[in-house]
Every structure is written in C-alpha cells, then in structure tokens.
C-alpha cells in the first residue's frame, strides 16, 4: 500500500473522483499520471484491463513496453505503460471520416462503435499506436459456447457483445477509454486499482486539490512524444 499524507493513495484518488463527479462534465479534465520509478513491469494493469474490457487476442489497451537503457555495464530497465493518451489535439479524431471517434467535453477521446466504419485510418494516424483493429479473433478459436468471449464488456456503458463479425465492436477500431464506464459510476480505472506498485494515478486535472494535479505540476514530468503537438493527457513521472 502506498501512503501519501497518511492516506492510501487509492483513497485519496477516490475522494478526488467523487469531488470531480459532482461538477458538470465539461468542467472535468480526466488525466493519468504514471510513475516510471515505481512501475515494476508486472503487467497487472495490462491483465486487469483485458479482463475489464474483455479485449480479444492481440488487442491491448494498456501494454507495458520494456526498454533497456544504456550499454553494458551501465544498463538499466524501464517499464513504460501506454494507455491511450486521450490527447487534447488528437490526430485520430481529425482523420475519422464519419466522426465516429471524437473528443468529449471532459477531454476523453471515445469511439462510437455504432458509427465506426472500420476504415482503420485512426490506427494509421495515432502516433502512439494506441488503437487496434478488432478483426474478430477469439482466444478459443471459435466463440460458440464460450460465454467469456461474447459477454458484454460494458465499454462506454453500453451493451457491446462480440457475437459475430456483423456486430460491433468486431470490425471496429478499439482503444483505451480510461474505463469511463467505471469512472462515471464513481470507480477508478481498472489499471489504477490493479497496479501493484501504485504507480498509476488518475483524476481530474481541473481540480487544483486533486492528487494528480499536484503530481504533474512537478518538474520531473514528461509527456510521450510531446513534440508532435498532440498534447497527451497521460503524464510520466521520472
């Protein structure tokens, strides 16, 4: 358990979340911070995300990249979890020809599965490779009789079941959505709660009191590929 100011950080973030949810949606700005010094590369966030969103094979909303730094004998490892950056200037929403992917007023970049035509232009345009194409693969090879494969994941608070390639989300682009279906119910994102090292922080950066706001205002923070001008909403603490 990670403690800040004599409190468990999950409790602090939950309190922050409750406070944020009381505000109108357009006054919130969801963001995530990941402390790379704390991340141990256990992939609990990845597996937690997979079970939460029932993602099919080869689709990882939050993979963890293992990077080797330096040269022998001065070497080290760095683990870089990569959720969707929920960019403030996203290239994916710009290229979507039918506005199936768009930015909500709380800053989240979401996909309307019922509108996505599956052209995959957003996959090509995303500089973080945060999007995947759901082409209709199943872990069990054939979904018939395997209820896990076709259960409702609850993504976006809707009833999406991977019944066949005629039904969304199969044929669509998919990506991390900061577990918005959980957040709107007052729960933290799954990756935040499953993180063994409490390296993931989530909250509303429009709230000056929120833990995440205080963390990202420090100088040891960077944003991935910030030079591209996408203004990512995921901050890495080093």
């Amino acid at each position, binding site marked *: 358990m990670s403690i800040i100011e004599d409190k468990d950080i999950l409790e602090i973030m939950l309190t922050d979340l409750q406070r944020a949810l009381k505000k109108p949606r357009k006054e919130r700005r969801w963001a995530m911070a990941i402390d790379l010094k704390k991340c141990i590369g256990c992939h609990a966030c990845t597996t937690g995300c997979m079970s939460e969103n029932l993602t099919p094979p080869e689709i990882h909303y939050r993979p963890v990249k293992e990077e080797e730094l330096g040269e022998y004998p001065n070497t080290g490892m760095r683990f870089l979890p990569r959720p969707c950056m929920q960019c403030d200037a996203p290239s994916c929403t710009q290229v979507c020809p039918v506005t199936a992917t768009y930015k909500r007023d709380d800053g989240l970049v979401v996909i309307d599965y019922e509108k996505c035509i*599956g052209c995959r232009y957003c996959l090509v345009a995303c500089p973080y490779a945060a999007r995947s194409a759901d082409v209709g693969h199943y872990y069990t090879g054939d979904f018939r009789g395997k209820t896990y494969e076709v259960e409702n994941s609850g993504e976006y608070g809707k009833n999406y079941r991977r019944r066949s390639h005629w039904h969304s989300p199969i044929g669509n682009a998919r990506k991390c959505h900061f577990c918005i279906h959980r957040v709107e119910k007052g729960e933290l994102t799954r990756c935040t709660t499953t993180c063994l090292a409490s390296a993931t922080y989530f909250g509303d950066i429009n709230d000056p009191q929120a833990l995440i706001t205080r963390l990202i205002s420090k100088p040891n923070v960077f944003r991935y590929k910030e030079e591209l001008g996408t203004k990512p909403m995921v901050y890495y603490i080093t």
Partner: protein
Amino acid sequence: MKLFGVFVPEKDRLLSYFSQFKQGKGGLTVYLAIIGLILGGFGFGSIFILGHGHTINTSSLVPWGLQISTYVYFALVSGGCIFTNFLGNMFFHEKYKTLASRVIFMGLITAIAGFASLASELGHIERMYLFMLSPNPTSPMFWMSVWYTADITILLVEYINIQRNNHSKAMLYASFVIPVITYCSLGSLFGAVGTMPYYYSSLLPIYFLFSGFLSGNALCGIIAAFQSKASGNLRLIKPFVRLQKIALASVFVLTFCRVIIGISSNLSGYEVFRETFFQNVVFGIGGALVVPFMILMYKRTVGGLILSSVLVLVTQFVARLDLVVEGFRVPVFRVYDMPERISYFPSIFEILVVLASVSLVALVYVVCEKTGLFEIAGKETH
C-alpha cells in the same frame, strides 16, 4: 435517356454476342475474366460471410493491406485515364479522338473496380452512408469520398457526352480538374499522416497524380495498341507512346526525390527508406521506370508499347502494395513478442479480391468492345 448504345451496347449486338458466347466464340479474355470473377466472387463472399478475422491478413500492426493498395492502384489508373484523355484531346486531336470514349470508359470501370476492392477491406461497409450523415471535414478520407463521387459523376457525364457526340470544352476541363483534385486528395490521405514517415510528405499527392497518369496511360496504351493493330492505323499509338515517356520521366524524378529525401533523413521511422533502398532503386526505379522507358525509346511499335505498358501496369501494382505496406514496416510502439520489422503477405482471399477487380475491368471492357459500344463515338467527330 438512351440506355442502349450509350451505357450498354445495342440490344441486337448484345444478343448476337451472347449467342456467339454460348457457342464458345466469345473470346478467350472473356472466358478467363468470367472464371476470374467467379473465383473473385468466392473471395468476396468468404470475406463477408466468414469475416476479416478468418480471411484477411491485415491486423492492428498492418491495418492496410492488399485490398487498400488495389483500391489505390485502380483509383490512380482511373485518374490516369482522365489525365490521358485531357492531354490527348489537347495535344493530339485527331490522332486521339477515336479512342476518347474507350479511355473515359476505362476511367469509370477502374474507379468502380477500385471501390469494390475497398469495400471488402472496411470493417462495416453497411455504414458508408455516414459519410453523408456524419461527415468530418477535417478528414482527408472524407474529402476523398466527396471528390471521388464528383469524379465519377463528371466521368459519367463526359462519357455520355462523347458517346452522344455532344463533347464540350468545359466538360473536358472539368473532367480534368476534378480528377486531379480527387487523386491529390488520395495522395494527401497518405501524405498527411505525420506518424508514418514513409507516407508523410507533401510530395505524395503529386507523386500519386503522376503515378496515376503513368498507370492510366499504360492501360490506355494497351487499348490503343490493340485498336491500332485491328484497324491497321499505326498513328493511333503515337499519343500514348509520347505521353507514356513523359509520365515515366515525371515519375522517375518524383520517385528519385522521394527516395533521396527518405535516405538522407535521420528521423525515427525513416529507416524504412534505407532498408528498402535496394528494392526501390533496382525495381522501383530501374525495373518499373527505366526499362519501360528504354523499350519505348528503341521500339516505338505496337509490340513495344504493349510490352512497356504491361510492365508499367504490373510494376505500378507492386509499387502501390509496397507503398501501402512498407509504411507499417517499423512498429510505432514495439511491445511483447512483436518483431522488429513487421512483414505482411496477403491471404488467398485478398488475392481473389484483386482477381475479381481485374476480371471486372477486363470483362466489361472486352464485352463492350466486342459489341461495338465505342464505335459510334469513334466514327464521328465530337
């Protein structure tokens, strides 16, 4: 509006061809094209019935594959036909005009064949109506769809005009300007993607335009060569030989610039240019551009034009596949057991889709040619 004799061949000639076809005298190309269409139909059917997961080899790592490159190829061929039509009308007048309706017709058919290939790649083709109901003006793909529609409409009007000997200069210019914008939009669809260094370039829309001109002119060149052989009028091939040389030289310059810019950059992702340098120079420039140019330089005959054009059509097809697929060679975010370099080979179903598109073009053109659809426009002045 008159249907027979304009859009479809005259009824009696069509019926007479059909009876010949039943007796096995329809022409080898037609029988081969029908077999190709049946096999291609099987490919299409399998993709739609079984789904992408079981039929095609594209994935999150290679989101666009053979079907997209085939679409790009046919779209560019279509644009090239219009380019050829415009330049032919402008600079070669009498030598060209007997082939005008065929050239525009090919522009139409290849545009449709390209769309057929694209349709099999989309995850939810049934939602295409959203291009109208929920458009996104910031998307190059949206603009491409707008111009593509305008392009097919203009082509159709131009074709009808030619077939009805009602040709106007205004329509000729419109049928040049709109396709140029359309195929530059297609180029910007790739060229505007800043995340893919292999695509990202302001050069790409121009490169697409001239590559299209080259491919379209090559296809028209084959038609001209056969027409020339059939009519014994060797002057028919002259405009196409000349235009093909211009197109080859233009694409040579653009390809050379693209490769040079690519290999001289140190930005992340540009290593694709260095890794594909050999294939780009030897095949992309040497085999695809220099050899066809040399053939036309030293063999300005019907055979030379056919050989050069076939070489251009085949190598441009491979070049389009290379362009689309090589963009994904270096993974943007490499995790887990992802290879350092992504490779892609199309599935049999994807290849069948290509076969269907090619067969469609061949079948429709040959049947229309054999039933004399283009004779009206060819005989009279417009």
